[in-house]
């Protein structure tokens, strides 16, 4: 992609706004359309775009594969962990009312934590899928057997 000057410049311009928009969708998910799934996919889209234009090697320096799968696991744990917290105060699993003095606040905090977990997991899983496909060795041609 070295010779595609326009693509490279546009990508550099567009990646930060995409990331920012992902965070907006993430943290306004409880007021407006959006939430963890959408935000995660948008976030991953920025990284994948970066990878396509500047090469797999560079994007892997930003987000190394070992970190990707650990972040994915962390996202799931953040979701599950939020549910487990309520067990300790004698409420049912995922009962966010337990998270604050007022149940309404608790529901609010709970959904933000859970959506963040979803966002992290979705973004990293999308990136992991991209890595898996992009890192495949090139196909063997019929003549090379």
């Amino acid at each position, binding site marked *: 992609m070295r010779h595609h000057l326009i693509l490279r410049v546009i990508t550099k311009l567009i990646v930060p706004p995409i990331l920012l928009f992902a965070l907006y969708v993430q943290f306004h998910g409880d007021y407006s359309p959006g939430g963890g799934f959408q935000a995660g996919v948008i976030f991953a889209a920025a990284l994948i775009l970066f990878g396509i234009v500047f090469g797999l090697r560079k994007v892997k320096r930003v987000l190394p594969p070992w970190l990707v799968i650990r972040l994915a696991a962390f996202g*799931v744990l953040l979701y599950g962990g939020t*549910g487990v917290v309520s067990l300790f105060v004698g409420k*049912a699993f995922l009962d966010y009312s337990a998270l604050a003095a007022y149940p309404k606040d608790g529901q609010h905090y709970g959904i933000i934590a859970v959506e963040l977990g979803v966002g992290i997991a979705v973004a990293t899983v999308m990136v992991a899928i991209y890595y898996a496909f992009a890192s495949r060795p090139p196909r063997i041609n019929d003549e090379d057997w």
Partner: protein
Amino acid sequence: MATPASSAVLTFTEHLPLLAVAVPLLTAPFCVLFGNRNIAWLLAGLASIASCLFSLHLLLQVIDGDIISYHLGGWAPPLGIEYRIDAANAFVLFLISGISSIVIPYARRSIAHEIRLASQTLFYCCYLLCFAGLLGVVATGDAFNVFVFLEISSLSTYVLIAMGAERDKRALTAAYDYLIMGTIGATFFVIGIGFLYMATGTLNMADMAVRIADLEGNRTVQAGFAFVVVGMGLKAAIYPMHLWLPRAYTFAPSVVTVFLAATATKAAIYVLMRFMFSVYQPSFMFETHTLTWIIIPLAVLAMFAASLIAVFQQDLKRLLAYSSVAQVGYMILGIGLLNVTGLTASIIHLFNHGITKGALFMVTGAFVMRKGSSFCDNLAGLGKQMPITSGAFVISGLSLIGVPGTAGFISKWLLVTSALEKGWWWMAILIVGSSLLAIIYVWKIVEILYFKEAPEGNTAKEVPYSMLIPMWVLASVCIISGIDTDLTYAAAKAAADGLLGAGVVR
């Protein structure tokens, strides 16, 4: 936003229905975070044992016909998701978590032998997800939640099967086959739930059952039934929909085959029972007709055709896989007979077949470890070289046939009794007749093991104790539950009463 209704403080015991599922589910990401295969193995073992203890506790609580209901997030059903534990699913939960607790110690050496180092941590993560998914399918009382957990277990199963590719590349196509068939099955199932939701406006199974009671003639409800039965039938490998199973079982890593054969189809059959008896009512004409004219013929076909195919197999894993298809036939036959004895037979056979097939596939895994494959030609003379392993094969093989004194006998006895209760003496003959086919294929292997001379210079030593002990634990459970049927029979009877009792709301 309304606040959740419940405000009482819950105790540890009251959380058990959730913990049995959530502990393995949340242990899986920990395996990845630590990134060490030994820690992952240890965590998987601890999670399985914890889950098994929780399930046993639940089973003992509900065996007298009580029902435990757990409200996720404190939202009361039918709006919220409910985990609803009665004798039927507590028994299946106990089977799945018990098998897992025995499989994990066995897995360590077998996995070290069959899967490359780098993938072993992820193997245990996938295994735990599959395990948690199956538990969730069984524990939940919410129809859509069944689908979600079904997908969790299925997706991880596809990965687990594909991991066999390091031994045999055909595992990839086997996993792909299963992915296509399994996705079609899950889609059909969710379409069925969609129809039910359209007709009843609820996703809670208990609530559905109440609202469905006077909707017998409703086409939407009937179509929903067809979709649910076909979808789950694919997952349970009911005879003409079994094509994914032999390939998946043959090429998956041995441990995966042990676990899937003992639990996965069982969970699917449990869901079938739940929908046929708790959600729909067996008194519905369309259901009675389906069971009598479609399910029973298919069951008989499975018993004979699949056993006959098994007789001619040259690979022990594939032989046992076809035998599993035949055994699923017995289970759905018990459902189709539509009386308490039949259903008891079916549920007890879930358990008995689970432990029997588990033991048999563990033996196969041991042969694979020492011989590189489970082709019949490679097994010649192993009876002398690996006497302890081969002994376990003989015992569990007897249980597979249904010889008196073994677990298999109990389920077949109940099945025959149930057929006779209906006055279907010819069915009793068919059940005994198909068991004769089981004698042929089990004997075929026993003959190869004990009466064929090993090729010159071909020696094999016993597998490590970590594999022998789990194998023999399962083999002895085959004998124990064939002689002392108190727990299994009481649980299966309570489960059948509960399922049929719930069906007679009117």
